[in-house]
């Protein structure tokens, strides 16, 4: 459905999170976590901080004592050999690991200075602020429009005109609008893999997150789609903090500003953070030997 919204109007309405929250809530009572507060007590420049994070599924310890920052408005790549816990680490950031029976988390994860694992923390709000894109694109069996509108509807947005604008803007930001603008009502499952993944990104963008987590988002896609998504991430990092797990080191080197290298001692032992730093440094001048070994392909 064509949306003839004026560019200015749309920017004014959607361009700032405050504006969207006003639209969503209707009166401008903004929930505390919904707006970036410049004076919140967080370490300067870090959107999130992991402190002593350990994760175990039942008896098996999967991650041990992870301490790392997630710098604001930049792309942080998490690399490491298969099975070292990269995906599990990602899921600790939006508390999705709780969906697994027997998952236990120790340590703290700070978002804007607040520990998200503190008792009473608003998990629903967390998942809105920290969105996730999965390895295999998983659009709902609904139309393209309904997929993107799912989030805003969840948060109470009902007026069609507002939803139309949100859907259009989200699809534009995900670089998908031109391809689907004439078939917003058609099924999302009819899109190609690359388009479906961008749709999932649009779906996340529609709820105005602050952090976007991507779990090997391109591993199921062809090189051209991968390229488009990497370009997209470059654009997105100006507004969002991005964490991307990838087993593809070239991708990590191309795309990210910071890199975290996670690995295990041996099969079955928990993953540990070996090194964290600016991507350029980590790839050309790693501090740890293990990092160097992994990057040069000596193992992993």
């Amino acid at each position, binding site marked *: 459905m064509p949306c003839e919204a004026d560019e200015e109007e749309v920017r004014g309405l959607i361009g700032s999170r405050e504006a969207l929250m006003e639209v969503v809530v209707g009166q401008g009572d903004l929930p505390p976590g919904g707006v970036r507060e410049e004076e919140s007590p967080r370490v300067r420049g870090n959107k999130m901080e992991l402190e002593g994070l350990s994760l175990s599924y039942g008896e098996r310890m999967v991650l041990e004592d992870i301490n790392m920052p997630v710098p604001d408005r930049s792309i942080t790549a998490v690399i490491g050999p298969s099975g070292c816990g990269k995906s599990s680490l990602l899921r600790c950031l*939006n508390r*999705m690991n709780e*969906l697994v029976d027997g998952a236990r988390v120790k340590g703290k994860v700070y978002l804007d200075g607040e520990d998200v694992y503190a008792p009473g923390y608003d998990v*629903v*709000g*967390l*998942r*809105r602020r920290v*969105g*996730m894109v*999965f390895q*295999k694109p*998983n*659009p*709902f*069996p*609904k*139309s393209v429009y309904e997929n993107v509108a*799912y*989030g805003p*509807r*969840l*948060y109470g947005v009902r007026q069609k005109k507002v939803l139309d604008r949100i859907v259009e803007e989200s699809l534009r930001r995900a670089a998908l609008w031109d391809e689907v603008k004439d078939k917003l009502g*058609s*099924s*999302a*499952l*009819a899109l190609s893999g690359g388009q479906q993944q961008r749709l*999932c990104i649009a*779906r*996340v963008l529609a*709820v105005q997150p602050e952090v976007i987590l991507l779990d090997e988002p391109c591993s199921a896609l062809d090189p051209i789609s991968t390229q488009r998504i990497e370009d997209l991430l470059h654009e997105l990092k100006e507004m969002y903090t991005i964490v991307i797990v990838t087993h593809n080191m070239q991708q990590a080197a191309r795309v990210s500003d910071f890199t975290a290298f996670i690995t295990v001692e041996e099969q079955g032992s928990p993953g540990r953070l070996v090194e964290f730093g600016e991507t350029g440094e980590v790839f050309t001048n790693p501090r740890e030997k293990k990092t160097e070994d992994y990057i040069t392909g000596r193992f992993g």
Partner: protein
Amino acid sequence: MKGEPVVAVRSAVRSPSGAPPLGEGNGWRGLLEERAAKAARKASMADRAAGLVFKAAAAVSLAVLAFIIGIILVKGLGTAVRPSFLFGRPQAMKEGGGIGPMFISSLYLTFLTTVIVVPLGVGAALYLAEFSRDGRLVRLVRWGTESLSSISSVVFGIFGMVFFVIYMRLSYSLLAGALTLTLMNLPTVMRVTEESIRAIPWSYREASLSLGASRWETARRVVLPAALPGITTGAILTMGRIMGESAALVYTVGIFVRKPPLSPLQPAAPMAANIWHLYTEGALIPDWMRVASGEAAALLVLVLLLNLGAGALARVIRKKMGIVQ
């Protein structure tokens, strides 16, 4: 195939008795080829034989089905398609009566039962499939419903009479019948719904939860709509079963009436039970055979249409959601 190496070791191979190797010049490749050819001939004959047997089985089943449907339609379709019959008043002692009230009773009963059993069954199945974490509870309920579904319908009828008609003082009524049929069909609806729900991939739920939805919101906005084709099919198939039910209704719905029911508290005479009634005691009506045949044909056509509709509806819903299965 190891042609050359075999030749190379030919001289080294001996059978246990020390005799030279069998077959033509190439070691035992020739022997193998002979045996393989024989086995292949046997296999293709077995293939053809099996194909014939299965085709025959299918043909017999279809023939029986066609025979039954054919007889019913031949004997009754002529009567059934006349509006004066379908909507006409039944006669007690004279010829020329219709089955109007029975037709309405069937529709009314089906509607009433469906409206009770589907929400109940879907709700229970949803709870079991989505929200219950207790494996033991799920197994217990499943055992209970499986047992229920294997009980004869007459037993349900007697239970219905004792509990709904007498104890709950509903007396012979549509409601008593509907409640009895609800008990009978609850296991089916629950099972179909549960299977539909479990067939939905975890990835949809994961996506919904990661956007900040609760389990209930996810169930309501993603899971149930996606399970709709399966649930609809189950509901419509249940409707077909309700239409054909007679034993459970004999003691509950009060089939000896000739007026259309207006409220659910009134007795009614649904078609299947009425057919039984006519055969058992219909000799009062001179043309009871004609009426019964017409009624049977009408019932059959109704159920066939219902089943066709179920398939079509499910396909339409699937297309709308873009599911390719």
